């Protein structure tokens, strides 16, 4: 346990809730919480009518949000009465994102979908939207609960943390040593995942050693360089690398491959299947953790449609989401997409995003 | 030596600038093997004419004939390729590059493979400087660290390093002292022998008589006439230039010299100011003579707080004080007219009005607010007093002729009404008419109790205007004379005496061995 790892607490002051160790589903959803989301004020009744939605992801122009956009397109096509457009800043910038949302509220839309760069910063503008009768649903990265109606949660933080840690431990053993490559320490999702991972690891694998965490932006060559530096710094001490973003994971895999250390340094991380296929095929990477971002976008549109149609109101415990079947409500106002998915050599070729 | 046929011929050249007709149907020619002088008041159009020849400007009307063909030089490169080399009035060098590179920029010697031959370039540069009798310049030195005089020498070497058929020199001697001027003349005569046509511009009339074969006078952009130099006299030329005769170029009024205002004692800022002691009194004009690089400007800048002294003491009105910035100097009533007007004296892209008020901004403002009315009055007063030729006070200074720019610098500092006025080459590039005017003003100011420290490379000016003459050499004050005591020869001897020739030889040796070692 190094000194910096000790400080991981998700950069906010929320408590961590590690799931139970091992395979037992002990951490099944806690008791139902009352609805804590917000409400659109006197929205026009558009039940069954065509609606226009705008999706403002953290940033546009990266693979992950290209996939969620694709999911939204699929849902819109399937539903037939939804039009959805994606637009947002070109850098993950809290200020620009707010500007975009502001503009869309002015423009007048029926619903806003968002993935927040900062849960608090985005809240005022979302509240404005609710006040003006615009429905607001988040996905991927949450805002303060009362600033939106529902949040489609791809997987709970502690669930992801458990999958990641379980996967890496499966490869390097319960007393293995590993390091992490993340985007930045201020990115909320990543920060929380790391915090949950640490809590889970301390609880379930106290002998595993967490060597270091490095930042690498959303830049793949920087990620590659950082992974290389970690490999060089720790030598044989390093047994595993965890990539916290869909950029860092393939870059770490690449670094391991180019260093000729496949099999000696395990790579596990969040990533999209397409980027990981070569490494999984070459057996350098055994497992990749992710939900399906296409499904995430798809679910978000379905949730929004259900809200507009009045079929999904506060207090509901589940919602039906097209091909995904029914999704359950957790934490008061979150719709859970499901447990995180672990891709491996057997199933990775079934996915294309 | 003159074969009578024109090498370069300009006919009926017209050039207009916004608001100004700079050249009005001027015809002019140079023959192979002659020195053709071009004279005229400040702003008469001399520089414009030669810039047309060298391809910087294109004429609005008229044509140019070069060795029998009508030509049009659209770029300076085109003129250069035709063998026209030019020394411009404003020094145009690359401050970050070495002396050698400055000399050969654009036509560097090449190796067999077509790449630049640095070794040859350095040795050729050394040769070029040696042919000008310049041994104290290191060809590897950055030009940015040279004094104006030395930069002028580099500029001359640069022009002479090209194989020129026509050599144009726009006031090449403005920043040079006697010996350097002599050397330059020797070279010009040599080129003349070789059949080069030389166009020579200068405001020092005696140079015209020494060097030129023919002379053309421009006035208000029009050609007043061309004549053989032997057929004319100085008065005649002046008359043609300014339309009147100048009685006395040095109208020195003897003033009452009062108590000391500026006393300096063993002031040092090595390596260029060493142990200088000097006293400047009210009403006194102190002329400071010296060779290029003798440290006069350096001393002035030390007094003005630009390069504060490292030791010694400065007393103003008897009170010892610390001068560590120009602002401090100005507060003490010291003003400095710098020698390098382009970078130090003026903010060229700004208007005449703004430049003239620059040093007295605080005085003409109410608190921090600029009083535009007062500013305009001040500018107009200066334009009238020094007869600055301009289309108005809003004219950008960079659009003025060289001499008129110099007048703006003078005006700017005289406006500040200081107790001590330090002037570094004050009449550089100023025409005879205006020169007399400036000398008169200087003298008047002295009579009213101002103390003037005048640095000049023109001995006649030093002799004509100073109450006291001091001579600097290698950073030290080496001699001092009172008005009337000294002859030109004595001063010149004080400027040069010492080990100059010996150390020159030493340098030649080390230079050539370095060259061989390289």
């Amino acid at each position, binding site marked *: 346990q190094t000194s910096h790892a000790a400080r991981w607490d998700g*950069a*906010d002051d929320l408590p961590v809730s590690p799931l139970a160790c091992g395979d037992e589903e002990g951490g099944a959803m806690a008791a139902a919480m009352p609805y804590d989301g917000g409400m659109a004020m006197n929205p026009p009744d558009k039940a069954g009518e065509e609606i226009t939605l705008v999706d403002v992801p953290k940033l*546009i*122009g990266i693979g992950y949000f290209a996939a969620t956009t694709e999911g939204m397109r699929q849902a819109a096509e399937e539903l037939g009465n939804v039009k959805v*457009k994606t*637009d*947002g*800043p070109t850098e993950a*910038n*809290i*200020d620009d994102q*707010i*500007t*975009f949302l*502001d*503009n*869309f509220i*002015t*423009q007048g839309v029926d619903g806003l979908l968002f993935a927040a760069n*900062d849960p*608090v*910063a985005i809240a*005022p503008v979302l509240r404005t939207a609710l006040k003006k009768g615009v429905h607001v649903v988040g996905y991927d990265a949450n805002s303060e609960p009362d600033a939106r109606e529902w949040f489609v949660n791809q997987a709970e933080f502690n669930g992801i943390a458990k999958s990641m840690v379980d996967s890496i431990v499966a490869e390097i053993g319960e007393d293995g040593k590993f390091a992490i490559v993340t985007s*930045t320490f*201020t990115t909320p999702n990543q*920060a929380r995942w790391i915090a949950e991972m640490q809590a889970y690891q301390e609880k379930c694998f106290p002998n595993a050693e967490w060597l270091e965490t490095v930042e690498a932006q959303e830049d793949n060559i920087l990620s590659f360089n950082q992974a290389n530096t970690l490999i060089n710094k720790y030598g044989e001490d390093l047994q595993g690398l965890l990539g916290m973003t869909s950029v860092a994971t393939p870059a770490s895999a690449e670094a391991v491959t180019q260093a000729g250390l496949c099999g000696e340094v395990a790579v596990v991380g969040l990533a999209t299947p397409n980027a990981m296929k070569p490494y999984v095929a070459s057996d350098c990477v055994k497992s990749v953790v992710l939900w399906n971002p296409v499904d995430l976008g798809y679910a978000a549109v379905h949730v929004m449609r259900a809200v507009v149609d009045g079929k999904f109101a506060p207090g509901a415990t589940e919602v039906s989401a097209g091909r995904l079947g029914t999704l359950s409500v957790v934490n008061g106002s979150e719709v859970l997409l499901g447990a995180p998915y672990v891709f491996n050599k057997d199933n990775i070729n079934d996915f294309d995003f | 030596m003159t074969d009578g046929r024109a090498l370069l011929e300009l006919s009926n050249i017209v050039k207009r*600038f*916004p*608001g*100004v*007709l*700079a050249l*009005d149907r001027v015809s002019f020619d140079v023959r192979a093997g002659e020195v053709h002088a071009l004279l005229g008041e400040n*702003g*008469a159009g001399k520089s414009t004419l030669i810039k047309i020849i060298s391809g910087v400007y294109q004429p609005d009307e008229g044509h140019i004939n070069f060795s029998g063909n009508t030509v049009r030089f659209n770029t300076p490169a085109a003129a250069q390729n035709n063998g026209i080399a030019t020394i411009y009035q404003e020094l145009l060098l690359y401050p970050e590059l070495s002396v050698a590179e400055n000399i050969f920029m654009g036509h560097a010697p090449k190796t067999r493979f077509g790449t630049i031959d640095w070794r040859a370039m350095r040795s050729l540069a050394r040769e070029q400087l040696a042919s000008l009798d310049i041994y104290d310049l290191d060809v590897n030195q950055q030009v940015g660290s040279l004094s104006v005089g030395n930069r002028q020498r580099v500029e001359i070497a640069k022009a002479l390093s090209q194989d020129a058929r026509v050599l144009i020199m726009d006031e090449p001697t403005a920043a040079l002292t006697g010996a350097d001027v002599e050397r330059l003349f020797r070279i010009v005569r040599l080129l003349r022998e070789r059949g080069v046509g030389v166009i020579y511009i200068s405001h020092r009339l005696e140079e015209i008589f020494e060097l030129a074969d023919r002379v053309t006078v421009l006035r*208000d952009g029009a050609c007043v006439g061309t004549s053989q130099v032997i057929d004319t006299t100085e008065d005649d030329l002046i008359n043609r230039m300014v339309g009147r005769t100048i009685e006395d170029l040095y109208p020195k009024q003897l003033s009452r010299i009062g108590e000391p205002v500026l006393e300096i004692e063993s002031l040092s800022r090595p390596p260029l100011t060493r142990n200088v002691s000097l006293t400047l009194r009210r009403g006194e004009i102190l002329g400071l003579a010296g060779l290029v690089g003798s440290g006069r400007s350096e001393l002035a800048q030390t007094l*003005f707080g630009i390069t504060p002294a490292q030791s010694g003491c400065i007393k103003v009105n008897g009170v010892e004080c610390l001068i560590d910035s*120009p*602002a401090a100097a100005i507060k003490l009533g010291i003003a*400095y007219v*710098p020698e390098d007007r382009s*970078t*130090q*004296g*003026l*903010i*060229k*892209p*700004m208007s005449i009005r703004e430049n003239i008020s*620059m*040093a007295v*901004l605080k005085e003409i*403002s109410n608190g*921090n*607010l*600029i009083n535009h009315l007062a500013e305009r009055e001040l500018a107009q007063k200066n334009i009238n007093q020094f007869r600055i*030729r301009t*289309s*108005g006070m809003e004219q950008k200074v960079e659009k003025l002729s060289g001499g008129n720019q110099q007048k703006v610098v003078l005006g*700017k500092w005289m406006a500040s009404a200081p107790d001590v006025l330090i002037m570094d080459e004050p009449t550089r590039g100023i025409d005879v008419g205006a020169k007399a005017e400036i000398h008169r003003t200087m003298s008047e100011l002295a009579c009213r109790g101002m103390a003037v420290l005048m640095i000049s490379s023109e001995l006649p000016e030093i002799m004509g205007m100073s109450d006291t003459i001091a001579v600097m050499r290698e950073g030290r004050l080496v001699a001092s004379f009172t008005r009337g005591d000294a002859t030109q020869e004595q001063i010149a001897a004080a400027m040069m005496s010492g080990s100059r020739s010996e150390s020159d030889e030493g340098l030649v040796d080390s230079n050539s061995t370095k060259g061989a070692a390289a």
Partner: protein
Amino acid sequence: MSRVAPTVSRMPSVLSTARRLALSHEGVLLIILMVSLLVLATQTDRFLTTDNLLNQCRLMAEVGLVALPMTYIIITGGIDLSVGSILGLCAIVLGVAWKNYGLPLEFAIVLCLVTGAAAGAVNGYFITRVGVPPLIMTLATLALYRGFAEGVSQSRSVRGYPEWFYQFGQGELFGIPTQLWFLIAALLISAFVLSRTVFGRALYAIGHNETGARFSGLAVDRYKMLIYTFSGFMAGLASFVFVSRVSTTRSDMGTGLELDVIAAVVLGGTSIFGGTGTIIGTALGVVLIQLLKNGLALTGVKGDATIMVIGVVLICSILITNFARSRQATEKPGD
């Protein structure tokens, strides 16, 4: 020569004055602004409404505040790339001083402004006394100050400010967003100082020829020190407004701000080589960029296309001014 052409300008005919104004860069910008306003207004009726416009003012306040001192700095031929990082640092100081050290929020705000000024003064000190070129100095502090922000905050955000604090970023005064008052006041003062005072004149002189300005006895170093400090201070002010607007403090606040600000200033006609530029131009530049972003978004143009349009406008506006100037220069002797 000095047959000075008969000066038409003595009798300033309304027409020629109007033409001169229209041909100035500010004129060109104003025309572009008007045209875009008109075009955008015909595309959507949600654009030209008081609500929308006021809201846009809220959004552009931070860039606007920082752009004013940046104009000063660029006029002197310098640049300040560290403004974004100073903004981040100040925001963190504000948050951390209040939350972690328990200082009263009012005091934390003052501390935030002082930090900004100090950060700017450090830039100024190295630039004037040590002689580090501004670009290099601020490139280094761009990394340094951001690093401080991360270090001090340990990359944690600070939230949960008291309600009154949000008044500055989210509230209104007489129906006008609070920060717009700040912006307008700062704008008027800076414009006045630049155009009327000795200080302003000195900035132009320094930009054109620093040596010349120094030889004229202007206190060049002091002025430069002042403007870099001012720049830091305004970044601090902007950070306070920003934190108040977005209700949170993060160490990555203001990332990339420097380019937005420089784009606005340059679009406003301030020459990057120093010596020319006006506050009015900068104000127009800020407004034009903000309205283009907003208007294009409202008419359904996507973000990627919008930034392309802004790139084109940036180049074209300078191109048009250059063209107008050269036309003016060649026409003059003819008439």
